[in-house]
């Protein structure tokens, strides 16, 4: 595909002697799109996202992101690649010894920005995302929703090209989940490709976007609710 940003070619993945999580899966995602990733609990949604951010090397097939084969990336290249990918982890993965502000500023620090500059930018981001006043709060003192927003803020600090969100609404009530989706749509309009793992059907209906459905090791891509099916690799 001409404008393809994520390319899976006959990718298979399994843990040790367990069943295949992905079996001979091929699909492409275009730049600037917004996809939901759905499937039953434990079906492998997080694993698929992990494959995209180069968290696994033990898979078969070829994964190309931005045209580069992830398998052959060295540590240095992987780090630079990950700086272009924002990840909202299901379990947040905030650093407990750093303040919320420093956690959010971290991606900029990793790129070599000066401490104070990165903190100033992170402070603006915190205001924008609704965490103003919590700059010096330690992550352990934040609520689930606040942590979620802190992780989102951290994931977009670098202005990533792809945003991977693993069940980002899992810790949020309906109102905050809807706010989060508005935020994602705003980011998507800004050109960020978004893949959001969720099993919240209400959200996929209320904010319609194409759906990557994962079941029994196979991936199928469906149009938003109310539209015809646009692709299926099966």
């Amino acid at each position, binding site marked *: 595909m001409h404008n393809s940003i994520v390319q899976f070619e006959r990718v298979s993945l399994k843990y040790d002697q367990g069943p295949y999580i992905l079996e001979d899966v091929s699909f492409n995602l275009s730049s600037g799109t917004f996809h939901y990733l759905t499937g039953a609990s434990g079906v492998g949604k997080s694993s698929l996202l992990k494959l995209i951010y180069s968290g696994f090397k033990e898979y078969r097939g070829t994964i190309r992101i931005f045209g580069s084969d992830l398998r052959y990336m060295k*540590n240095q290249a992987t780090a630079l690649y990950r700086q272009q990918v924002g990840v909202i982890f299901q379990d947040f993965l905030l650093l407990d010894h750093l303040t919320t502000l420093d956690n959010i500023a971290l991606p900029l620090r990793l790129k070599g920005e000066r401490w104070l500059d990165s903190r100033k930018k992170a402070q603006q981001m915190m205001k924008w995302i609704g965490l103003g006043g919590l700059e010096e709060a330690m992550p352990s003192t934040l609520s689930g929703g606040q942590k979620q927003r802190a992780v989102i803020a951290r994931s977009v600090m670098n202005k990533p090209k792809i945003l991977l969100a693993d069940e980002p609404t899992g810790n949020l009530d309906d109102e905050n989940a809807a706010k989060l989706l508005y935020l994602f749509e705003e980011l998507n309009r800004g050109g960020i490709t978004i893949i959001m793992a969720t099993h919240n059907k209400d959200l996929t209906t209320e904010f319609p976007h194409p759906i990557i459905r994962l079941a029994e090791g196979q991936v199928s891509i469906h149009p938003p609710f109310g539209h015809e099916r646009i692709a299926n690799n099966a």
Partner: protein
Amino acid sequence: MLKMKTSAVRSEIPFNQVKGSKMVFGTLGLMVFLITLCLSSSILLERTLQTWRHEATQGFTVTLPPVTDPQQQFLQQIELLKLLKKIPGVLNIEIVTQEKRTSIFDHWAYPASTPHSPLSFQTIEATLDSRVKIDFPQISSTLEIFFPTIHLEAGRKSKETFLEIVQTAQISIMILAGLIGIAAIFTIAFTTHAGLIIHERVIEILRLIGAEDRFIAKQFQSYALKLSVKGGILGFGLSALFYSLLTSTIDLSLLSVTSKTFPYAEIWSIIVFSPILVAVVIMISAHTTVMFALSQET
């Protein structure tokens, strides 16, 4: 506008949470002190060796047992002097006077009132031409023909042996300094490895959000520098204190150096630069250890 806290944690890896790691700086301080001690001793020995080499006369000493008859003793001396003058390579011969012997041997060890005082021995020193190869066993045999009770001591040989022993000690001290340096490197490598295991989770998160290996290595390097600066200050303090005590109490003549020839500048340079050198080596060691360990992971 939020007030930016300058005291905020500046390390992305929580090194300070591991209390035991602070003990490392004490170990490093001790190592800096020992390295300084070794290098200073080596410099001092080198300076002493130079003096001793310069002072080392090329020659031998012959001693005849005391004779009760002064006339006979005088004739014996004349005969011996004639014999010694004939030996090829002998530049000068000198009868060791009572004053000289007294200056060599302590008064308390050989009081003049002692009946069998060594002052009654006849001692003659011969200075040799350093370019001439001397066969000491041959000289000894020749002298024993005429004076069966004579004792010959080859000064050149014994001094050279002594200098070799001192030089070996100097080399050993340098090797010891090197070994202490290697131990410091291994200490840091081990501590860094332990740090990588302790902070595995944090490092994993940092890498997941795009931290390059060199960024993580830099964190460990900065922490190692912090520890080595603290250790360096401790080592510097110990060294300076020890050196000050030593120079105020030591009898310099024991080392054949004077206050003018004592290597003050060299030793102070070692005391100042050893901690800096150790800090640099430790930083490199920490950086290399992290880069190597992370390169083994995928």
